[in-house]
């Protein structure tokens, strides 16, 4: 009995030592080496791909933002600022509940099922809003024009991109609200469309933050 106890203790000791040594290798050296290489070679990317407008950092090119008007009195949900291109709905995004000294964006999806009644409501409301917001005189938006990404929340809630279709849909509205020619805004969207990598990997997309920064520059010039 004592013999098997000592054996067990010896084995657990070996296990602990193995864990500590391997922690040193994979939990300390490995991340430090990778961080060293990353900070040396890819400093901007390793620190969040920050992007500037008018000399100020206005976010990360990889993280989607909201382009809303300031909350009015009594309003619970802000209205979109239709002057700017709008990103996808972000119903799955949360605030932090555990370490509330910070105001972190807690990434996430809605996790609503395909037959969830609330999701059906959200999609219907989003579709109606997209149609209403983007229909300008002489250019009505039909329900079949609205692409799926315009009315659904992404997996992260931080999707930086919209589809080319959704960007195109917003061109008339953005042109009208900013007093720009439609062709100029359309050209801007074209310039900011990224195709599939090597022609087949992923999906074509438009980065909304980069597009709005370019739009702002265009407005400042004209």
């Amino acid at each position, binding site marked *: 009995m004592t013999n098997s106890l000592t054996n067990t203790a010896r*084995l657990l000791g*070996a*296990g*602990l*030592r*193995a864990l*500590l040594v*391997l922690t040193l*290798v*994979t*939990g300390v050296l490995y*991340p430090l*080496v*990778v961080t060293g290489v990353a900070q040396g070679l890819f400093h901007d*990317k390793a*620190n*969040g*791909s920050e992007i500037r*407008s008018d000399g*100020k*950092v*206005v*976010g*990360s090119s990889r993280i989607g933002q*909201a382009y809303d008007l300031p909350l009015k009195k009594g309003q619970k949900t802000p209205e979109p600022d239709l002057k700017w291109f709008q990103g996808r709905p972000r119903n799955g995004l949360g605030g*932090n509940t*555990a*370490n509330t000294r*910070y*105001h972190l964006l*807690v*990434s*996430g*999806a*809605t*996790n*609503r*099922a*395909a*037959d969830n009644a609330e*999701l*059906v409501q959200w*999609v219907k409301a989003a579709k109606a809003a997209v149609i209403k917001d983007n229909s300008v005189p002489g250019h009505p938006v039909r329900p*079949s024009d609205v692409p*799926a*990404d315009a*009315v*659904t*929340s*992404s*997996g*992260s809630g931080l*999707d930086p*991109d919209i589809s080319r279709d959704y960007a195109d849909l917003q061109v008339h509205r953005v042109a009208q609200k900013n007093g720009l020619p439609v062709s100029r805004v359309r050209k801007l969207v074209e310039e900011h469309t990224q195709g*599939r*990598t090597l022609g*087949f*990997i*992923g*999906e074509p997309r438009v980065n909304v933050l980069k597009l709005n920064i370019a739009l702002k520059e265009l407005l400042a010039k004209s």
Partner: protein
Amino acid sequence: MSPVLAGVLQMLALIAALALAYRPLGDYMARVYSSDKHLRVEKWIYKGIGANPDTEMRWHAYLRAVLAFSAVGVLFLYLLQRLQGVLPGSLGFASIDPDQAFNTAASFVTNTNWQSYAGEQAMGHVVQTAGLAVQNFVSAAVGMAVAMALVRGFARSRTGELGNFWADLVRGTVRVLLPVAVVAAVVLVACGALQNFSGIHEVGQFMGGSQQWNGGAVASTEAIKELGTNGGGIFNANSAHPFENPTPFTNLFEIFLILVIPFSLTRTFGVLVGSVKQGYAILATMAVIWIGFVALMMWTEFAHRGPAPEIAGGAMEGKEVRFGVGASSLFAASTTLTSTGAVDSFHSSFTGLGGGITMLGMMLGEIAPGGVGSGLYGILIMAVIAVFIAGLMVGRTPEYLGKKIGTRQIKLAALYILVTPALVLGFTAVSMALPTPPHSILNTAAGSVDHSGAHGFSEILYAYTSGANNNGSAFAGLGADTPWFNTTIGLAMLLGRFLPMVFVLALAGSLAEQKPVPATAGTLRTEKPLFTGLLAGAILIITGLTYFPALALGPLAEGMAA
């Protein structure tokens, strides 16, 4: 180019890349696990452990070492989380509650990486890198070690010796996982993944105001999280988060990392048992199932049946624009056919049938190609069952790779395949029957007062399927951070990992003791396509019979109604 064609081309590109890596990586791993030389760094590590890497272990000694190492791992990780509040380098994050700390410790040591916490608001740098990410390496190395012990059981004769656990553990970590992870992590950073040890970072926004995001060793964690088929993300959104998976290329690269070791291990197996053709037969079974599941997933997601996706005009809820439906389907099928559980899109919002495919992938026992190591030993157990069934048909004692499959062997294999279904169906039934656990369900049927509904049931079925099979993905609407779910899913993960390992190592020991039986005209040719068909059939039929009633209540009911 249509999105469907782009999806198919991405699958073909992935197959080509995996085919290129198959021989070199498989042969390399065979050399790693059969070499009698030790690297200098390994000698230092053995000195630190105080173990002689050349001592041969019989199966119970091997098992005791596996269990001791894993038990220490659970305890260490539990304490690290409980002490987070007073540890430096934790961003000031609080300690984790006992039930959640137990769940998370069990989860990462068992290669599951089920997360009942939201990463960015719960875990600081120390727990993340020195605790969780370490288990990403070593839990994968433990899986490979057990697989190698079973392979040695087939390859060796008239001995009970299965190798040395400490040597297998260290070699898997140092020679296989670490070098690939370093390269992969740098590739991910070059494409835009985060990698720093900054605190909470505050930047301005386009419309004014500011936003905060976490710093972290994201790329280095991401690399091993996929390569070791672990799956636990730094961020709540896992590989859907742009800082973990920034571009369409990184997405395909991460799927490659998930699949490359499990597929290549069939080559290692073939080399070590002295017939690469035996490895090809196993590979073919894995590949046929994987391709079939990817095709089915793309079909149902592109068809987007169901009320919400039909109104939206596409199954984009929970999916990122840069990946789209095709690449998200590819990721979802691959992560659930392995023990990974990382997600680039949220399975709960897939079509009813798509969600069912993710569950069925796990229910197969994660063997196509399965987790790192666990996929290989899982499918070899099924191969034993398949030759047994074939033996029954022709009425002769079955044999596999020159070893007799007798009563003891078939008992151990049968016990292996009973463990996870018992855990999954048992815990699901109890959770549905008890009054409180169903309150955690998010997707209740419209107007129901008792939290019923097909998708709600699926959330709980998915949770235990994922836990017991050591996957880690979720129908994440389920509010799983309750003492009930933290405890029972924690138990399901531990029992679902280590009980099967007991049976695998016992089987390995019994095989290694046998003397080889010479192949005769009556021997089933297990390197032929006929056997691949038999094996795939056995896997699908056994899983189907076990889980069909449960699947019919959940995803099939949801999918058929759409």
